[in-house]
């Protein structure tokens, strides 16, 4: 919690720092800078145009004031744009007015104001001046004194014109006095009234020119002195200075921002490396834990095996000692040896189970209909489980198919039922159900999990004593068992677990002490009808009335086997005693096409029986059935003419395939 808060504080501080750097590193707005520069050059250009036009207007080269008005408008427009020159943007929204720039803008504005006032005076005075000059020209051309003094007047007019010429060239010189004197002289000439009248006007205009022309020239001089251009230049200098400083500052902060980014990148790289190292260490630790767990499992396994074998060895040694006792009769010795045999077979069964459990090879999987296989297994269970057990079944998946090994499925069912029998101590109810379920979303089970899809669900529920949580956790561990010594191997449920895992299924176990136990096994359901048909064709190759000799010491199993063989199209002949079977065989060895015999029988083992028959008829195929044995555990298989060893419980598919192989 404290670490989290510290982390939050550091992140916030970093955010603040980076934001601050970003804000300070923002360059002045380029568009505005360009606009200011444009305005500065517009101010300069308009001022220059204004000065040029003033000179032209003074000289009479242009005779309308529209260009001057336009120049003033241009200056004012430029000024409006320059009013924001002082607004240097610092950051995203923050604007700072530079007082220096602002002052210079104000000075430029004042200069333009002054310039405009001068210009208005210039326009007025210049218009009057130009007007008077035009009039002077007009009158000089037209008026003539119509009297005897004509020549004198004409001479004086010439003098006036001359003086005016000099005056316009140099308004401040003595020509001014000459013009005035000339006008005075003309006024004193005796003349007619209409000449006097028009001369009066000439006189007024002449004197007006003398008065206004110096004023206009003064105005022109002032306008050409042009404070606005000076002010514009100053403003430009100050503005560029301020702008340059702002840019330099922004660049400095940008460099800082970059440095911060580099530092952060380095820190992230460092954290990444450290994370990697941590992950490696964690992996190591996990691997060691795994190893330890494995060792523990091996220990449990070894302990379980040792315990089992210890019991068996105890039995063997005990019976052997009794058999060797000198007081023992022949019958007693035989009984003891039989017990030793039983114990040995039991030890062989343990080994077989260990091998099954540890077998790594993937069984041959193929699609098959679940319900038929389950029903067959339940039939077998009915004969092998105590009659006191109430076995109920509800099979509701007639079309469901799955991919896998039917024998292994049956093994799962039988192991679960054995477990249930034990839990109910043989006097309870076991409900077996088969149905299909659709799983819409991921579902966690007690052992494993389901992804969405359709599943075949096989459930076995009992009303036995149930399990507590610690027991429930360990039920799939090898050699973990609650049965008393000698009654369980501790490999039943682990085998179930292995089979289910190999079929990509999952297991859900619900149990509580006194409330019974419910196993639910989920297998993925498939749609592959074609594959199944092929498998069934091969599996259910039917017989053609061949006579099969079936030998098993269990009467119920013989009956079951006979039914199965008859169904498959064979002619079964069953015996529950191997001696009787051999006797029947001796009567007519050619009668039988194949012999199917159990291995473990009290009077004569299947192998002995096979060997005896083989001697009588060497071409006879013999198939050995066994509850436990793998091929390695049956001795003298070839000597006895045994073609194949198949496992109990018998599956019609397996039996049909096997018989087909050896009959044809």
């Amino acid at each position, binding site marked *: 919690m404290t670490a989290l808060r510290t982390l939050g504080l550091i992140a916030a501080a970093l955010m603040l720092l980076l934001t601050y750097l970003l804000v300070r590193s923002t360059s002045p707005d380029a568009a505005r800078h360009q606009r200011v520069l444009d305005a500065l050059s517009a101010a300069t250009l308009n001022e220059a145009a204004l000065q040029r036009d003033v000179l032209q207007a003074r000289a009479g080269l242009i005779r309308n*004031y529209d260009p001057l008005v336009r120049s003033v408008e241009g200056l004012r427009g430029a000024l409006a744009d320059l009013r924001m020159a002082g607004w240097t943007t610092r950051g995203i929204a923050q604007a700072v007015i530079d007082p220096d720039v602002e002052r210079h803008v104000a000075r430029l504005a004042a200069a333009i104001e002054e310039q405009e006032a001068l210009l208005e005076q210039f326009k007025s005075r210049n218009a*009057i001046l130009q007007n008077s000059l*035009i*009039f002077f020209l007009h009158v000089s*051309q037209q008026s003539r004194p119509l009297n005897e003094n004509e020549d004198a007047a004409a001479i004086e*007019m*010439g003098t006036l*014109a001359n003086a005016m010429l000099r005056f316009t060239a140099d308004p401040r010189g003595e020509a001014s006095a000459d013009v005035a004197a000339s006008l005075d002289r003309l006024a004193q000439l005796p003349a007619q009234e209409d000449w006097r009248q028009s001369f009066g006007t000439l006189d007024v205009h002449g004197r007006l020119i003398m008065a206004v022309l110096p004023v206009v020239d003064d105005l022109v001089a002032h306008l050409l002195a042009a404070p606005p251009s000076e002010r514009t230049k100053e403003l430009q200098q100050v503005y560029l200075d301020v702008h340059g400083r702002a840019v330099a500052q922004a660049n400095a902060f940008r460099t800082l921002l970059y440095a911060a980014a580099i530092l952060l990148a380095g820190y992230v790289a460092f954290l990444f490396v450290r994370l990697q190292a941590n992950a490696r260490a964690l992996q190591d630790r996990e691997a060691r834990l795994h190893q330890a767990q494995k060792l523990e499992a091996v220990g449990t396994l070894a302990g379980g095996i040792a315990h089992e074998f210890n019991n068996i060895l105890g039995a063997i040694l005990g019976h052997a000692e009794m058999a060797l006792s000198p007081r023992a009769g022949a019958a007693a010795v035989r009984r003891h040896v039989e017990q030793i045999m039983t114990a040995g077979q039991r030890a062989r069964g343990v080994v077989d189970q260990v091998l099954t459990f540890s077998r790594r090879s993937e069984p041959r999987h193929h699609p098959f209909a679940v319900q038929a296989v389950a029903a067959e297994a339940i039939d077998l269970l009915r004969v092998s489980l105590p009659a006191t057990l109430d076995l109920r079944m509800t099979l509701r998946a007639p079309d469901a198919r799955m991919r896998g090994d039917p024998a292994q499925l049956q093994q799962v069912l039988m192991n679960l039922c054995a477990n249930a029998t034990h839990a109910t101590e043989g006097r309870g109810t076991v409900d077996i159900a088969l149905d299909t379920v659709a799983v819409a979303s991921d579902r966690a089970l007690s052992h494993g999990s389901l992804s969405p899809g359709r599943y075949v669900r096989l459930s076995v529920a009992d009303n036995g004593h149930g399990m507590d949580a610690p027991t429930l956790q360990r039920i799939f561990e090898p050699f973990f068992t609650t049965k008393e010594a000698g009654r369980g191997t501790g490999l039943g449920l682990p085998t179930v677990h292995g089979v289910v895992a190999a079929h990509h299924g999952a297991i859900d176990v619900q149990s509580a002490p006194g409330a019974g136990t419910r196993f639910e096994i989920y297998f993925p359901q498939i749609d592959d009808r074609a594959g199944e048909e092929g498998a069934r064709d091969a599996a259910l190759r039917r017989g053609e009335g061949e006579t099969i000799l079936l030998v098993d010491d269990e009467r119920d199993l013989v009956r079951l086997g006979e039914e199965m063989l008859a169904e498959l199209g064979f002619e079964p002949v069953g015996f529950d005693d191997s001696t009787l079977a051999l006797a029947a065989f001796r009567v007519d060895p050619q009668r039988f096409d194949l012999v199917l015999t159990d291995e473990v029988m009290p009077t004569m083992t299947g192998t002995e029986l096979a060997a005896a028959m083989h001697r009588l008829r060497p071409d006879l195929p013999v198939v050995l059935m066994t509850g436990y044995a793998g091929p390695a555990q049956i001795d003298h298989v070839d000597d006895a003419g045994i073609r194949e060893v198949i496992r109990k419980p018998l599956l019609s598919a397996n039996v049909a395939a096997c018989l087909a192989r050896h009959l044809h």
Partner: protein
Amino acid sequence: MVRILAVILIWFVFRSAAAVSAAVEPVAPLEPAAQLDAAKVHLGRKLFHDPRLSRDNRLSCATCHDLRAGGDDGRAKSIGIDGEPLEFNAPTVFNVSGNFRLNWRGNFRSLEEQNESVLLNARIMNTTWRELLSKLGDVPDYREDFRAIYGGSPARFSVLDALATFERALITPNSGFDRHLRGEAGAISPAAEQGYQLFKSYGCVACHQGTNFGGNLFQPFGIFDDPFREPADGHAAPSPLERLSGEAGRRLFRVPSLRNVAVTAPYFHNGRTNSLAEAVEIMARSQLGRTLPKHDVRLIVQFLQTLTGEYEGRLLSDPDRHQQ
């Protein structure tokens, strides 16, 4: 001989002015109105003619600026909202955008400023923004227009902008004289052409120049003769120089444009005369120090009549003057 010499000398003095005047006219033809937003012009026209812009809906802009006539109201002085005459004659609103300042005194630089002053003036439209905007906001038609053009309800800025945009469109191109300037033969009569030459040679053109024949400078009214003096008043007039310096401020007017002058009688800031000829004579006397021969005045008037242009394809006319 001597006279010839004098003439040559004087010619020499003014050579530059004369030489240039032959090459470049001091006046220029009107260009048609610049590209303006048609929707704004349309809205401005509605506002211009809408009496809701005044208190009690008595006056619209068009009351004093009749666009069917010369863009003025034909009165010596316009009548204010209180029924009393205002201080000045109403100048024409046509070609107003070509004037560098507005009103007789030239006291406004922009149409927006001028329009606002008229709207709020207690003697003219006598409204307030609050009142005006609420009245406009109650008209669905206006609400829709303002929303479409300015994206909001009527506001000070948008009302002034629409009005000014409309007023910028009030250009009267294609006058006889403009066609003449553009070289169209026979666009004006020889008498008018002669009048134009007199207009230049008497010096009228010194102030009435440029595209608008004026409207781009200030000038004191009454340089050589006092136009305010009653004819019976016998006291000695001050000299032109005294007038230029001393009383310039009070007598300073914006030189009015002469475009459409023939249809914008009566003349001068106080509307003292309905006769264009008399106006020309007064101007010559007071501004040029000249008394013009009647013949020359007639010719100049004929020239001035060629300055009447077209608005919406129709030559401007002054119904009041025709009735006289």
